[in-house]
């Protein structure tokens, strides 16, 4: 005799919840949408306004100054290839999305990470949420993004921020918690307030770890921005997406290689920033 166990309508609940959020907070989401879109357009226009060669020189110069002449040469070759393949504009669009998503993610992640480092209760509350955010298949975020923000770049940013934020939070928390107890004790012994302890001891000492987290966030953002092409985000991702739809492996790989080049440049640049901080 089979016992009838009713199926829990989990999906229905979530949908009801999301619908409620969408209708109740449509004003808020529309506001966020407009604000973010302005930011995206502004940055995109600025980068596009620069002549291609000028931007290339600026990026190569940054690589030279922050990292090494070798990276600068690599940047020139890599970006030159992207330009030659006719992928310059999509590359700029992708870069814009990554920069803005990372910025938003970091602005949220730093205070949350710091708070979780200082409060055990918050730490326990936040860790499962982070696990959820990181392990939930990235595509799933795209679905609610559309009713919230409509098809396009803002939805892409929303999904990207959620997907890429966890490492920045985790590493910030880790960095602050890793500060040796003796140093905290020393700061306390000399009568430091909580703020003084945070800004003079905990944050400076956790900076290399925080930077590692930001590096991870950038990498995740880049991978998500590409996926976000499925909901209408412009950039290299949409080139890949189009190649899939038309079954053109050559085009797909060209755009894919451009993503790889961009990823390597961003990674080496942020890593060199981190090493420099370590003195």
């Amino acid at each position: 005799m089979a016992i009838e166990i009713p199926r829990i309508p989990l999906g229905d609940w979530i949908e009801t919840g999301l619908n409620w959020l969408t209708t109740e907070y449509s004003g808020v989401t529309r506001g966020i949408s407009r604000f973010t879109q302005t930011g995206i357009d502004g940055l995109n226009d600025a980068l596009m306004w620069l002549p291609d060669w000028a931007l290339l020189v600026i990026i190569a110069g940054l690589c030279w100054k922050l990292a090494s002449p070798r990276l600068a040469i690599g940047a020139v070759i890599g970006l030159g290839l992207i330009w030659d393949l006719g992928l310059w504009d999509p590359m700029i669009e992708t870069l814009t999305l990554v920069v803005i998503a990372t910025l938003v993610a970091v602005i949220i992640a730093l205070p949350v990470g710091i708070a979780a480092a200082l409060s055990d209760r918050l730490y326990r509350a936040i860790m499962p949420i982070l696990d959820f955010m990181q392990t939930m298949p990235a595509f799933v975020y795209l679905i609610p993004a559309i009713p919230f923000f409509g098809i396009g770049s803002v939805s892409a940013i929303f999904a990207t921020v959620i997907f890429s934020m966890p490492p920045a939070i985790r590493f910030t928390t880790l960095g602050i918690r890793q500060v040796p107890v003796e140093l905290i004790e020393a700061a306390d012994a000399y009568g430091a307030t909580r703020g003084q302890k945070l800004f003079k001891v905990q944050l400076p000492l956790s900076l290399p770890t925080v930077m590692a987290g930001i590096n991870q966030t950038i990498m995740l953002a880049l991978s998500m921005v590409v996926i976000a092409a499925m909901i209408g985000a412009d950039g290299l991702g949409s080139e890949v997406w189009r190649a899939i739809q038309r079954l053109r492996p050559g085009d797909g790989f060209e755009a894919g290689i451009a993503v790889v080049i961009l990823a390597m440049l961003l990674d080496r640049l942020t890593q060199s920033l981190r090493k420099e901080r370590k003195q």
Partner: protein
Amino acid sequence: MSDNRSVKIKVRGLSKVFGDQPKKALKLRDEGLKRPDILEKTGQTLGLSNIDFDVHEGELLVIMGLSGSGKSTLIRCLNRLIEPTEGEIVIDGEDIPQLSDKALLECRRRHFSMVFQNFALFPHRTVQQNAEFGLEIRGIDADTRAKTARDALSQVGLKGWEDAYPNQLSGGMQQRVGLARALANDASVLLMDEAFSALDPLIRKDMQQELLELQHRMKKTTVFITHDLDEALNIGDRIVLLKDGEVVQIGTPEEILTKPADDYVERFIEGVDMSRVLTASSAMRPVRATAREDDGPRTALRKMKENAMDSIYVTSRDRKLMGLVEADAANTAIQAGQDRLDGVLTQDFRTVGPDEPLHNLFALFNEKSFPIAVIDDERRLLGVVVKGAVLDELAQAGDQ
């Protein structure tokens, strides 16, 4: 000597229980249970129990005990890095356990500088910035703190290293930075938590010596924690001996060595090289008789005979040591009809200060075996040491 000084920190009935039911643990303690029983019955660790002691103004007080004795807990209770469970810690009239959080910050800034076992220097700050830390926290302006920190660094011999980072320095130098950070802060009490324990023995001796000199110069009230009895005896004006969270004995190094309060202290001091820490004053006997400078030879000779001595020290009216007269010489003077001692005074004897280590005294006894005169800074005669007394004292110490 130091007992006459004013009290800087008064600690009374200080106890610390680690655990969530301190009341229960203290109740059992009051019923006479000891630390292991309390732990077994309640799961609470009695870290410190009913600690009473004073820290005098300007003294270097050593709190000494083995690991688990509660010495680190004790020093951290003083500035409330660890919250005491009960008791009073009064510094300049303020009861530290009663202070609000804000008042506590203020109290730490004003009263306590701390030096740590593992240096606890900030790796992202230069030597100079480390030394400035306490002043920076107190909001002192940049120029003043830069100057104060530089002075402190040069006091500990680190001039020229201001811009180095801690990881570029040796262990000994790092601890000098730790010391400079504490000195620059100019708090009224210096807390040193096993400050030299992580250093290798030679550097450690140097640092002890330097601390003594600094302390002598600045007269800074210092509480020094150590597990090393040699170190405690070497630098302490007074020593508080802790065992299992309780005070076993408080006293000067010599009191601890010569009058150990119980078996525990006795066992503790077994390993110490006694002749190195016993001083002339411990073997010194009061002078049975002295001749006055205006005594004649006859008076001097009579004093010697009465006291069965064959020589006598001659002192001025204010007890300053003038010289020594031997019985033979006094006889000669009488036969020659002299009525003063001036002609027969000899300087052929040895003098030492009261702090002279006992083992140095052996070499000073000459063939004639005059007692060694113990004199103070102004050549006042404090007492004498005879050869037998040195041996007695050393033998006694060896037995213990």
